[in-house]
């Protein structure tokens, strides 16, 4: 996705329109400079009143400001569209693969903090880039019509700026790459300390930890300043050359007007209005260069984001089958058959077949791929060879959503979303009574203990439920939804005997009510409770 920095044709056209507006605004300064030059020259000639010229100056200035305003609004919309498109593409790609290389917090940081950094790349950097190619050239040509000497002063000082900036920029680049990392480090350090604060307080170690934090932060500041000392040189060069340029123009004009310099014009000696005009032109000749320098940071930031996005796509995507959308459940009695199947993550699945009201335990050493098998059975991971048949159809992208509508997947670590318990149990809003389902799953007492019963908010900010409770609630959801296949990954891991017993009993009840149960487990009690066990093939070294 490095291509996030290239624009589509209509977007590029829009950027060009914005640039033209801005360039028009820049060039209108020539009119203002002319008006001022004539006013001041008028003062020296005979003191006639230049009110009309002052009005011309002010009116042109108002027009300039309006043009800049329009350009600013237009280009902002462009930036927002780029952000929107990039976010959409990222989410399109990442939501349908379960092998995401990034944590959920990292993806959220990309979506919320980093992708928006692409906008200033266009609204500031690219705009400045176009202006810098046009405006200084135009100003040199205009200066040339008045005085070739001034044009030379501008030509010499102007291009020297990018040269020097490039030289210093090269030196600063590596250093500033390090610095970017270090600025991030201070924040990460803080986050880390805050996250560890409960433990630190329990150890009575706040003051010690604070002292360590201060030392680290001070060290980072010194490193950062070392980098900035070089980096700021670059902008100082810019300031220096533009100041020297303006000063040289002023001195040249002054000495010409005194008659001490007689070269540099086209025949006639420099007039006062020409002199004032040239002096006013000089600072605005440098302005686009200064804007570009100020926007350099936006370029670096956007490129870093683009690289990160590009890196995401180098890993081969393992998309899920189907779209993860709501679908009419696949009809017919449950049948699952696995034949010679390997997942794309190179896990060899055991061959087995299972029908309605049956149960099976997938067993094997940890790391042999039990969880992966369950994921593949749910159509969340494509196969590299062999096939999985469900209801006598080969499981593929066309029927995966319909297949998933008949099953419930119980991961080992259940994510409790930030919703109410009733929304959790009834995500599609059928408004049924979850009571019976809760009873079968031994989950009624969990609901009874919650402060607001079914209306209690769960999730990180709400009432916490323990791992065993979450599994029972998920089973209740399975009963409630009428799903007739239950895929459970280590449903008794980390639980004490009583709770594990409750879960096993609930799974037994599921099977008794006609559901197909497949568990991945190494818990002997759970394996015994299933009809049969299927061992995963030993991993071949």
């Amino acid at each position, binding site marked *: 996705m490095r291509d996030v920095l290239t624009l589509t044709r209509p977007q590029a056209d829009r950027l060009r329109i914005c640039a033209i507006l801005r360039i028009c605004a820049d060039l209108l300064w020539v009119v203002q400079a002319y008006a001022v030059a004539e006013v*001041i020259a008028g*003062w020296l000639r005979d003191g006639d009143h*230049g009110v009309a010229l*002052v009005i011309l100056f*002010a009116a042109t*200035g108002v027009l*300039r*400001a309006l043009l*800049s*305003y329009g350009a600013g*609004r237009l280009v*902002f919309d462009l930036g927002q569209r780029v952000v929107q498109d990039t976010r959409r593409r990222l989410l399109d790609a990442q*939501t*349908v693969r*379960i092998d*995401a290389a990034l944590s*959920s*917090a990292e*993806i*959220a940081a990309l979506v*919320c*903090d980093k992708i928006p950094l692409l906008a200033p790349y266009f609204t500031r950097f690219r705009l400045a880039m176009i202006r810098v190619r046009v405006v200084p050239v135009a100003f040199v040509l205009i200066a040339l019509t008045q005085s070739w000497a001034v044009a030379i002063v501008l030509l010499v000082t102007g291009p020297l700026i990018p040269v020097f900036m490039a030289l210093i920029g090269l030196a600063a680049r590596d250093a500033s790459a390090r610095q970017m990392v270090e600025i991030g480090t*201070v924040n*990460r350090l*803080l986050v880390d*300390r*805050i*996250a560890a*604060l409960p433990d630190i*307080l*329990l150890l*009575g170690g706040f003051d*010690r930890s604070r002292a360590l934090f201060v030392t680290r932060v001070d060290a980072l500041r010194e490193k950062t300043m070392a980098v900035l*000392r070089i980096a*700021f*040189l670059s902008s*100082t060069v810019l300031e220096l050359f533009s*100041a020297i340029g303006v*000063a040289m123009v*002023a*001195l040249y004009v*002054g*000495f010409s007007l*005194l008659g001490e310099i007689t070269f540099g014009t086209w025949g006639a000696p420099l007039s006062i209005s020409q*002199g004032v005009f040239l*002096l006013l032109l000089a600072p605005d000749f440098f302005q686009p260069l200064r804007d570009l320098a100020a926007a350099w940071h936006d370029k670096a930031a956007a490129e870093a984001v683009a690289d990160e996005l590009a890196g995401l796509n180098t890993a081969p995507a393992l998309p*899920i089958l189907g*779209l*993860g959308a709501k679908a009419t459940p696949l009809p017919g009695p449950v049948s699952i058959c696995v034949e010679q199947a390997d997942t794309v993550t190179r896990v060899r699945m055991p061959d087995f077949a299972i029908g309605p009201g049956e149960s099976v335990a997938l067993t094997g050493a940890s790391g042999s791929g039990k969880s992966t098998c369950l994921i593949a059975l749910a159509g*969340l991971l494509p196969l590299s060879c062999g096939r999985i048949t469900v209801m006598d159809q080969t499981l593929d992208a066309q029927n995966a959503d319909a297949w998933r509508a008949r099953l419930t997947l119980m991961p080992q670590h259940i*994510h409790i*979303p*930030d919703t109410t318990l009733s929304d959790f149990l009834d*995500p*599609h809003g059928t408004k049924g009574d979850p009571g019976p389902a809760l009873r079968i799953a031994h989950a009624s*007492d969990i609901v009874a*203990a919650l402060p607001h019963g079914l209306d209690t908010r769960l999730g990180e900010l709400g*009432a916490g439920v323990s791992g065993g409770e979450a599994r029972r609630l998920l089973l209740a959801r399975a009963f409630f939804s009428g799903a007739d296949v239950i895929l459970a990954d280590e449903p008794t891991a980390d639980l*004490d005997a009583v*709770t594990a017993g409750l879960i096993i009993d609930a799974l037994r009840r599921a099977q008794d009510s006609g559901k197909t149960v497949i568990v991945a487990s190494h818990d002997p009690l759970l394996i015994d409770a299933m009809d049969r066990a299927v061992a995963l093939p030993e991993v071949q070294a």
Partner: protein
Amino acid sequence: MRRLWRVAGLLWQASPWAMWRGAAAALTVLVMGAALLGLSGWFITATGAAGLAGIGIAFDVFRPSAGVRFLALGRAGARYAERLLTHDTTLRALAKLRLALLDRLRHWPIDQLRRLRSAAELTRITADVDALDGLVLRLILPLLAGLLTHIAAFAMLWWLTVPSVALSIAGGYIFGGGLVLWLTARAALVPSKTAERSRQTLRRQVIGLFRGQRETIQQGLLPRRRDELTRSERTEQNAESRLNVIDERAGLALNLIVTLTAAAALLAGDIAVGLSTLSPAAAAIGFFAALGLAETLLPLRRGLAELGRMHDAAGRILPSETPKPAALPLPEVSPDHQTALVLDGVTVAAPGRQTPLMTALSLTLRPGETAALTGHSGLGKSTLLDAIAAVSAPLSGTVTLLGTSISDWPDEQLRRHLTLVPQRARPVGGSIRENLAIASDDLNDSAAWEALTTVELHSVVQRIGGLDATLGESGTGLSGGEARRLALARAVLRRPSVLLLDEPTEGLEGPLARRVLANLKHALPATAILIASHRRAEQEMADYLITLQSTHARK
């Protein structure tokens, strides 16, 4: 706005002397810039007049041209100094702000701090600190320097030109600029709050979507969740767009102020020259200085654009307005080492609930004894340990540590005698040594290795590079079981009278778990240990086994 002033004050006080130097450098830059243009304008007009009058040869070119050169070079130098000084002070100030934040969080109840662990919440805190870095750099310093520059410019122009020129420039910039500043700040507050809030919603939704991704897909809810994301994004972008309108309008207004003020200066000069109360060269100073002074105004725009966000962030970073009533520090207690820990009729409830999770528990633990708490999950073992460690309050009953009620212990002394290792104790980013140093004031290598050996972590640490091996954020570089043992090693270094362990050997193989526990008892022979566990290893080594009873089972 008062919050922003308080934050500004806080940032300024971090190193006031350096801030003033930065402000002085900023002032120098602005004054020199305006003077450079003013002098250049005067120079050209004056030379033009001299040339016209034919007295060019008598004109003193030396001093003005030296002045132009000095101002040009001096301005660039001052700019460099300004940037270095202000950035250094800002970094210092932000470090202070982060420390102030830590210092404030220190007084939070531990159970509230645990909830801060969520990634979204933490990102927001750092984003808030970052948002405030522009406050001094892009708002306060430019404002201060700009205002001082205008005062200086006003005095100079009053002296060099006529009052009408000086007044039109000062009036246009100070009142016009002030008005724009005030209006923009007012208009931006609501949309920037909306933008920030919708961005947080978006963040929460993205995190939620990816954490529960498999379940979302399995339930066929992916398109719906995506629609929700799109809606939040639209709210965010609409707010951002409104902010941009405000920002562009501020830019428009600032540009208009510059143009109209310069025009006013030009007109005032024109009239004064027409009345012959002012020489043309002096009149030129007015106009050119007005142009140069634009630099006092235009850079404020970026700071203005961020004002709403800063205001919002300041509200969250600052301590709440009402200071807590300063509780009298509890007097030191004199520990009685006869009994280590006594529980009398203690029950706890899940956070936010009022029904007891288990039947009342009483027990007495003497120094050197070990008890294991068992009972099925959800019975409140962790909550009970929290109550014993005074992290949260029990629903009923009393906890007595070394002869004194737990609520009478001053916090610092309490932590010297009682250590709780929670289930999810985590290392901090940094070296192993740093991690251990949190637990001990005078940590030497041999003590560190001894503690690591006790928890059977010495070979792991040796493998990854010794005590100076660096762990990533939240201890990446160690497995879950290893991180837990590092937390145990810290507890060993505390040498507490009472040690509370929550599932200490989770994720360890049986034999290793037994070795760690045996070493622990050996290393802390006089410590009373209470372990919450459902594993056999822990239950075997305990002198007592306490099985918690559910209140529901009784009914």
